C-alpha cells in the first residue's frame, strides 16, 4: 500500500528535515521553502496531499498569504493545513483558524505531539476519500490515487483494473442482517490487503463492488478461480459468498474511470460463474463499449440527425404461415460507431430519462408510415410499439400515448403496445389504471419477454393482456433441453385459458417452428421467418406476402 503524502512548507531546511525525520516512517514527505513554492507543487498535481504543514513567517509568500490562496482555490475543503510556527499568540492562532487552518503546533517540535496531531487531522478527514466501514478507498479516493499513480509511472500498460462483484450480497444481508453484510465487506477488504495479488490501491467502489489497481504480472487466474468462493464465519453462522471479476488492462492515457467501466462491463461476458468467474476486457467487448455519458450527451443531436431508425420484424401466424403483425424495433446507426446495439444504449437512455422521447418518436414514426402506406393503397399490419418502464413515471408521456390511441384506433388491436415485467413496479407506483384505459380504448397490450424475470405470474394476475410473448431464451433451448418443451406448452395452455394469444420469440430453425406448431402456439417471431427489416424492405415483405396470399 502507498503512504499518504504530506507537504511540509517552511523556509528553514533544518526545520523541514526535522519534521521529515519525525514523519517519514509513516508518511511520504514533500518539501517547499515558502507559500509560493507550495502552491506550485500542489497545482502541478503530481501528488495527492492529505495534509500541509505550514510555517507562518516565510519570505516570498507567508503562511497567512498561502492560506488565503488555498481558500481562494477552494482547496481548504479537502486539504487540511496544520500551522507550525514559533508564534503561538492568540492573535496568530485566531488569524490562522479564520483562514481555515485545522490545527496548530509551536516550535520547537515535540515529536510525539507532531505525529499524534498529524495522524488525528488526517484521519478526521478520511471520510472524504475512504470507506469508513472497511478502510478501503471510496470511489473518489480511488480514482484520485489511481489517476495520480498512473500519471507518474513510466509504463502504465504494466497495470490493470480489477472489478470484483460480490454475488450474493443481498442474500447475506437478508439472512444475517446488515451486520453480517458489513462483516462480509470487511472480510473482503482484509482478504485483498493480504492477497498475493498485492493491489496498489483497493477501493470499495460502490455498495458490493470492489475495485483494485494491480500489476498485471501479479494476476493469477487459477488463484482467482480458487478464491472466488469465500466463507464467512460470523456469530456461529457459516455463509458462502462468491465473486465475479472483470479485468481491464490499462492500455492508454485516459482517465482511470474508463478502465473501471470496462472492467465492470466485462462482467457481462462471464458465461459460467462457477468454472470461470472472470472475464478480461477485449477488443470484441471494446466494440460494444458505449460510454453511457456519451450516449445521453449525443442523444439530442442523434435524434435531430435522424440516426435512429425504426425497423420492423414480422410476426407470423403459426397455423397458416401468414403475416399477422409486426414489432417496431429501434436501431441506432451512428455515423462513426456504426450499428449500436440496443441493449447497450437503451439502459443508458432509461437511466437519464431520455427513453420516453425515443419511445414517443417510434410511436409517431410508425403511425406516420402506416398512415402513408394506407393512403398509397398499400397493405399494412398492426405494428406493436415497445414502452419502457420509465414511460410510466412520466405523466406527459402517458397522456401523449392515451391521446394518440384515441386518435388512431380504427379496429380493436390496430394499435398495440408491448411492456415488460420490469414495468410492473413502475405501474404499481404510478398509474396502474393506464393499462386499463388503453384497453378500454381498443388498444391491445402485449406482455413482452415473458419468463425472463421474476414477477411474470404476478403481472398476469394484476393486469389483463391480449397477447403474451414468450422470451426468446425458451425457444433457443427448445432443441437442447427436453424440459423446455413442457414449459412452453404449459405457458401456451395457460394463456389460452386466460383468453390470451401467444407469440414465441426467437425462432430460428424449422424444428423449433414445428414444435411450436404442435403446441398450438398462435404466432411466431424470429429469424426463421424474417430478421427485423428497415422500412423499405418491410414494405416489400408485405407486398410479397400479399402476392402470395399470406396476409
Amino acid at each position: 500500500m502507498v503512504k499518504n503524502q504530506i507537504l511540509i512548507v517552511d523556509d528553514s531546511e533544518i526545520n523541514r528535515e526535522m519534521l521529515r525525520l519525525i514523519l517519514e516512517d509513516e508518511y511520504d514527505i514533500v518539501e517547499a521553502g515558502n507559500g509560493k513554492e507550495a502552491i506550485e507543487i500542489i497545482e502541478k498535481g503530481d501528488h495527492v496531499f492529505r495534509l500541509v504543514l505550514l510555517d507562518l513567517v516565510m519570505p516570498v509568500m507567508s503562511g497567512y498569504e498561502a492560506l488565503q490562496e488555498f481558500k481562494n482555490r477552494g482547496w481548504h475543503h479537502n486539504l487540511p493545513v496544520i500551522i507550525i510556527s514559533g508564534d503561538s499568540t492568540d492573535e496568530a492562532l485566531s488569524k490562522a483558524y479564520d483562514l481555515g487552518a485545522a490545527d496548530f503546533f509551536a516550535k520547537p517540535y515535540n515529536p510525539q505531539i507532531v505525529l499524534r496531531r498529524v495522524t488525528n487531522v488526517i484521519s478526521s478527514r478520511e471520510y472524504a476519500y475512504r470507506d469508513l466501514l472497511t478502510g478501503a478507498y471510496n470511489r473518489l479516493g480511488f480514482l484520485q490515487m489511481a489517476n495520480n499513480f498512473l500519471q507518474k509511472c513510466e509504463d502504465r500498460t504494466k497495470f490493470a483494473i480489477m472489478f470484483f462483484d460480490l454475488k450474493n450480497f443481498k442474500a447475506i444481508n437478508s439472512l444475517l442482517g446488515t451486520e453480517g453484510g458489513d462483516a462480509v465487506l470487511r472480510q473482503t477488504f482484509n482478504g485483498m490487503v493480504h492477497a498475493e495479488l498485492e493491489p496498489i490501491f483497493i477501493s470499495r467502489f460502490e455498495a458490493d463492488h470492489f475495485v483494485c489497481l494491480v500489476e498485471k504480472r501479479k494476476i493469477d487466474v487459477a488463484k482467482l478461480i480458487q478464491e472466488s468462493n469465500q466463507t464467512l464465519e460470523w456469530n456461529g453462522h457459516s455463509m458462502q459468498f462468491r465473486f465475479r471479476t472483470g479485468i481491464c488492462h490499462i492500455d492508454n492515457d485516459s482517465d482511470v474511470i474508463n478502465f473501471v467501466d470496462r472492467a465492470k462491463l466485462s462482467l457481462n461476458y462471464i458465461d459460467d460463474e462457477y468454472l470461470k468467474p472472470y472475464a478480461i476486457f477485449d477488443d470484441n467487448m471494446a466494440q460494444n463499449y458505449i460510454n453511457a455519458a456519451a450516449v445521453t450527451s449525443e442523444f439530442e443531436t442523434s435524434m435531430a440527425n435522424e440516426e435512429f431508425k425504426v425497423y420492423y420484424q414480422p410476426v407470423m401466424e403459426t397455423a397458416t404461415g401468414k403475416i399477422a403483425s409486426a414489432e417496431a424495433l429501434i436501431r441506432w446507426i451512428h455515423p462513426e460507431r456504426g450499428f449500436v446495439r440496443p441493449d447497450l444504449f437503451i439502459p443508458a437512455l432509461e437511466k437519464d430519462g431520455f427513453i420516453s422521447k425515443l419511445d414517443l418518436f417510434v410511436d409517431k414514426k410508425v403511425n406516420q408510415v402506416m398512415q402513408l402506406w394506407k393512403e398509397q393503397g398499400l397493405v399494412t399490419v398492426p405494428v406493436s410499439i415497445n414502452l419502457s418502464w420509465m414511460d410510466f413515471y412520466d405523466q406527459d408521456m402517458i397522456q401523449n400515448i392515451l391521446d394518440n390511441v384515441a386518435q388512431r384506433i380504427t379496429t380493436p388491436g390496430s394499435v398495440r403496445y408491448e411492456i415488460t415485467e420490469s414495468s410492473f413496479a413502475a405501474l404499481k407506483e404510478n398509474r396502474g389504471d393506464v393499462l386499463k384505459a388503453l384497453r378500454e380504448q381498443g388498444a391491445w397490450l402485449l406482455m413482452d419477454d415473458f419468463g425472463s424475470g421474476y414477477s411474470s405470474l404476478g403481472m398476469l394476475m394484476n393486469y389483463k393482456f391480449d397477447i403474451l410473448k414468450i422470451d426468446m431464451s425458451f425457444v433457443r433451448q427448445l432443441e437442447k433441453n427436453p424440459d423446455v418443451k413442457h414449459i412452453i406448452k404449459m405457458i401456451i395452455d395457460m394463456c389460452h385459458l386466460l383468453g390470451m394469444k401467444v407469440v414465441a420469440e426467437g425462432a430460428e430453425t424449422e424444428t423449433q417452428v414445428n414444435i411450436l406448431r404442435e403446441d398450438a402456439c398462435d404466432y411466431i417471431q424470429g429469424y426463421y421467418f424474417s430478421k427485423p427489416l428497415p422500412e423499405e424492405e418491410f414494405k416489400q415483405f408485405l407486398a410479397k406476402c400479399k402476392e402470395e396470399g399470406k396476409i
Partner: protein
Amino acid sequence: MTLQELYLKINGNFAEAQGRLMKDSFIEKFALMYLKDDSFINLQAAVDAENIADSFRAAHTLKGVAANLAFTELQLAATNLTEQLRPQTETANMELYTIVKAAHEKVVNALNEYSASKS
C-alpha cells in the same frame, strides 16, 4: 569533544535535544546542518540594509531553528530581537542584534571545533 560538551559550550539544552531527536546521531546531523543554514546570513543582510520586514522574518526563522536545535542562548537572543522587530515600525535594535550575532558566532565556532575533533 562530545555532543554534551558542545551543548554546554553554547549554552544549549542537550536533554531537550535528546527528547526531540532521540538519537545522538540525529542530534549531530541536525546540529551540523546549522553550519549551512542561511537564517543568520539573511538576518545580517536585512539588518545591514535596514529592511525592517526582512529583518523580522529572518529573526523569526532563526528563532525557530534555534528552538528546534535547543540552542537555548541563541534562541533567547533571537526571540528578543524578533519581539523588538514584530511591530515592524523600527529597524533592528543594534544592541539586541549584537547579542544574536555573538550567540551565532559562539555556535558556529563550537560546531567547527566539534567537527574538527571528529575528523
